[in-house]
């Protein structure tokens, strides 16, 4: 059986802007999608606490019913891509994801998969957004692996239909990044 060496990752660098813009931007589902619409926003900072103004962040999640690709699988519904601004901030508009069980049937809390690319990152960082106040967080197997750092993955309520979630690439409050 052929076994090929995988192509190594390289940094996205600082010069990707126009070519990497997608029509949906940071709107993961159209307005018509059922579910509770929320905004998630925050800031990306480096190890010095400085804003990371040239990151590209991708988001992937199921719809409110727990379906990937939405009601019509094989689409890009539930996917979003944003570029951070000069102030390092990003913002997405989405619906709260439905819960999807783990491969072994255990409960997973609702979450959004997040992939981060930036100058200075030689490969992508992978993390997840969970939601404050969600009872099933306590039973989530990935959160359980994070120990005392688990709160870095939990978006905080920030008004009626908004959550705040920051990404700290390095330092005292460093966000948990996963390998899977």
């Amino acid at each position, binding site marked *: 059986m052929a076994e090929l060496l995988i192509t190594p990752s390289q940094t996205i660098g600082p010069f990707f802007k126009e070519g990497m813009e997608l029509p949906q931007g940071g709107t993961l589902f159209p307005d018509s999608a059922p579910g509770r619409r929320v905004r998630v926003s925050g800031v990306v900072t480096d*190890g010095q606490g400085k804003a990371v103004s040239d990151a590209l962040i991708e988001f992937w999640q199921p719809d409110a019913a727990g379906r990937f690709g939405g009601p019509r699988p094989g689409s890009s519904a539930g996917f979003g891509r944003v570029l951070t601004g000069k102030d390092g901030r990003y913002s997405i508009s989405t619906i709260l994801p439905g819960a999807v069980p783990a491969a072994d049937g255990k409960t997973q809390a609702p979450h959004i998969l997040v992939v981060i690319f930036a100058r200075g990152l030689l490969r992508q960082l992978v993390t997840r957004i969970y939601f404050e106040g969600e009872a099933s967080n306590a039973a989530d197997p990935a959160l359980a692996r994070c120990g005392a750092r688990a709160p870095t993955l939990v978006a905080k309520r920030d008004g009626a239909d908004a959550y705040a979630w920051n990404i700290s690439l390095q330092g005292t409050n460093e966000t948990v990044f996963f390998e899977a």
Partner: protein
Amino acid sequence: MKLRKIPVGAHPNLLHPPYASTNERAPRQPAVAIEPAAAELSGPRFDRTLLFPNHDDMTRQTGNMPLGERIIVAGRVLDENGDPLPDTLVELWQCNASGRYHHEADQHDAPLDPNFRGFGRVMTDAKGRYRFTTVKPGAYPWRNHPNAWRPAHIHFSVFGQTMLERLITQMYFPGDPLLGYDPIFNSVPTDRARERMIAHFDLEETRPEFALGYHFDIVLRGPEATPENR
């Protein structure tokens, strides 16, 4: 589905001090290992409505030819088992022949080319093949260390079937004397793995009286081979 583990040394380490920007941006904590779940093992599907006009020809985006050496780049997107990945989105961007990006942050004192924007999108066909036409990108200086120059490269962003396969990389050109000095290229730890990022000159892809051809295959993580799925 279970994906093969990423072999040690296949990708760069996040912290690679010769590439200065990693010092403030690479996480210091080790990644936390988790079992991939539904979100990691699925991914968006894109269709051809995403493709720009002349999406596969960066020399025909304004109506006038850009300056520089026209080239064709073609190859396949495969997984580790050698299986082709059809209908996969490949996004491309690069600087112009003078070594300048069409981007506000690029302040290199080399001319912009009004006829070259330098980005494209292609989708692989049923056999995992892609092809595009462009001009050969120039080398350019950067401020990583004294007299630092990036070797000529084209950026590739590839989706694959699942979010775990997601890859952004750079394609380099054979025989480039700058490769040995480049901390980004050399962040990949082994010769064998670095060679995977270098295109090959390809006479088959070369079009007479038109452009040199280069071949560049992209290999993504693939499913673990088991008796059931092989």
